[in-house]
């Protein structure tokens, strides 16, 4: 095949068409991403709005140098809520169905000690097909157990291999396991943070 024949061939036409479409689509998505990308600040504001229904004053906690990597969860961000003295922690719970579930966890404080979980809100759940089945009601139930601390430490042990009990009630048992891992991680982080003399 000569060079001239190659440029007139169907193969060349196919490659050019496919690359052309890819280029146009790529440029389109790049431009649109510039306009539509959701920034971390916007995501944080949304989370605050979802949890509190209003904007609240928060102070970011510097988590570098602190224990943030637990066996079944990682701590990504942490804030002290100045309005009520609680802690707002962004934790990534492992052992979900498709990976990790990122949750905002409001860790309730009483007399300078961790008193439980006030609220849980999902931030990101890529790969969790049934995450829509985890309603806010289910999260509230998880957070508002009679004794959440005991419940979470006992009934919701880290990385339970076979989901059962309350996990299955939503129909998204593996995602619930990741959520409870995130909640446990957030509580452990705040406990060790407070125990370290921080308020």
């Amino acid at each position, binding site marked *: 095949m000569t060079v001239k024949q190659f440029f007139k061939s169907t193969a060349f036409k*196919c490659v050019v*068409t*496919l690359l052309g479409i890819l280029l146009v689509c790529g440029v*389109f998505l790049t431009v649109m991403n510039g306009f539509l990308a959701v920034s971390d600040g916007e995501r944080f504001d949304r989370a605050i709005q979802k949890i509190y229904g209003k904007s609240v004053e928060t102070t970011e906690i510097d988590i570098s140098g602190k224990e943030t990597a637990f066996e079944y969860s990682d701590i990504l961000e942490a804030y002290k809520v100045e309005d009520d003295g609680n802690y707002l922690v962004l934790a990534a719970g492992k052992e979900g169905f*498709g990976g990790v579930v990122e949750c905002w966890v409001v860790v309730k404080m009483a007399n300078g000690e961790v008193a439980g979980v006030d609220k849980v809100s*999902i931030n990101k759940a890529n790969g*969790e*097909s049934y995450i*829509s089945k985890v309603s806010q009601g289910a999260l509230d139930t998880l957070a508002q157990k009679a004794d959440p601390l005991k419940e979470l430490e006992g009934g919701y042990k880290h990385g339970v291999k076979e989901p059962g009990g309350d996990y299955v009630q939503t*129909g998204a048992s593996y995602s619930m396991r990741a959520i409870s891992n995130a909640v446990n991680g957030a509580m452990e982080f705040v406990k060790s943070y407070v125990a370290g003399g921080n308020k």
Partner: protein
Amino acid sequence: MNKYKKITLDGLIFQNPTLMLVLGTCPTLGLISSATSAAGMGLTVVVILTLSNMIISALKKLIPNEVRIPCYLVVIATLVTFARMLLEKFVPDLYDSLGGFLALIVVNCIILGRAEAFANKHTVLESAVDGIANGLGFTCALTVMGIVCEFLGSGSVFGLHIMDFAIGMFATPAGSFIIYGLSIALFTYIINLFEQKKRVKENKLARENLLDKEAA
């Protein structure tokens, strides 16, 4: 019959992608436990299907036959990514509730199927009508099944609590599968009944014409 009316009726009823062709089963089973998620998914598919049909129809002479499927997939993937960006920015709750199924629209049989079977053989306008009709057919089927599943499984409709009694199984894919099967059976029965009546009417008309001719 008007060409556009036929395309619309085929998409909505006679070749309904969900209930007659049994396409797009994965999001159907995954999302119909909530009417809101089902309707949201349906409407997203309407937009993506219509746009992909129009773009593919417009590009049909430009795309070589040998690479048509990869080209269709690139176009559909771009539209799905764009739809994800829009939903995440403006409707975050719906974006969260659709979860992984939103990204899976890229490989939804309905969208690729309509591109291959219809859009690359018809004009842009016809393809747009086909996209809207098929998308609405999918949306209606999903929403109706979603209402039934949510009512039986959670005792609510579109998140509005109606009754305390609920059968938990209908909030799971197993329950969705049962509702899906029953819906297909009911829909097919109604369509058959309709076609049977149409045939009887046509036969009666033909017999009367024949009798008229004999009398003349």
